[in-house]
């Protein structure tokens, strides 16, 4: 994603790229910023920083290529460098363990609590959103990229600087954790028998 040779754009071209290739993604970018920081003001700052960086480095971007993935990558890096350091939140996740499990034969064993489609559809409030927000930020991120934004594994690997195999194992673990959380909500809603 970064190996594109430097482009040369006139000011008109720069503004054209900015307005027609970058700005149309602002809604997704704001949502990504919010889901990472869980704070609307921080999300605004993060998105603003990202767009300023994107404009500053616009000649590293090749017109007509995947602007959304490029912008998401900048935002993710800004989040890690500028925001995560502030909170000094250590990663609580042993990723080697996540990957080893994914590649083991145990992976098909049902480890998530049973959950019914019906109980999910009755969740009309913020349960889904709260469940997503409760995940560790690295697990939250893969779900946002894949399920909310529809990025392909290859794009996610480039955005996150991790191998595709890691994208897949992390996504698997993230979904199981999300199901556990949703199952807790289902139980609190009175679904005693949560078997499908």
């Amino acid at each position: 994603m970064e190996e594109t040779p430097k482009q040369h754009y006139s000011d008109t071209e720069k503004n054209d790229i900015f307005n027609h290739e970058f700005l149309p993604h602002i809604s997704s970018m704001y949502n990504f910023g919010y889901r990472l920081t869980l704070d609307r003001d921080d999300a605004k700052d993060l998105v603003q920083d990202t767009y300023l960086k994107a404009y500053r480095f616009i000649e590293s971007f090749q017109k007509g290529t995947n602007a959304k993935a490029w912008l998401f990558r900048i935002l993710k890096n800004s989040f890690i460098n500028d925001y995560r350091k502030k909170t000094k939140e250590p990663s609580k996740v042993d990723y080697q363990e996540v990957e080893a499990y994914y590649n083991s034969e145990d992976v098909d064993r049902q480890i998530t609590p049973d959950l019914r489609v019906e109980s999910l559809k009755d969740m009309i409030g913020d349960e889904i959103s709260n469940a997503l927000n409760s995940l560790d930020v690295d697990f939250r991120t893969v779900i946002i990229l894949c399920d909310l934004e529809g990025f392909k594994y290859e794009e996610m690997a480039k955005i996150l600087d991790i191998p595709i195999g890691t994208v897949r194992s992390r996504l698997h673990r993230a979904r199981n954790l999300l199901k556990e959380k949703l199952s807790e909500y289902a139980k609190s809603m009175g679904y005693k028998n949560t078997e499908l």
Partner: protein
Amino acid sequence: MSKLYNPFILADGNKPSCMQMLQLILDGEASSEQQEYFKSHMDKCMPCFKSYSLDMTIKELLKTRCCGDPVPVELIEQIKIQINQNMPS
């Protein structure tokens, strides 16, 4: 039932697990051949059938419930002002 060719089998000969097949289907990463195979596999594999419905529902709910918050109206204007101030061409 005749043994179908499994298009999920990896180059190294390893057969992916049910969950790994399901994930590729769910995320639109499976080829049309793999999708066909998985469809008939679900007829014989209840856990896959159940997981498919559940995972699909969660994926759809995430998309509808966790997107679409309006972007603050002033944000685009602020970005444009910053660019004009900080990066005069």
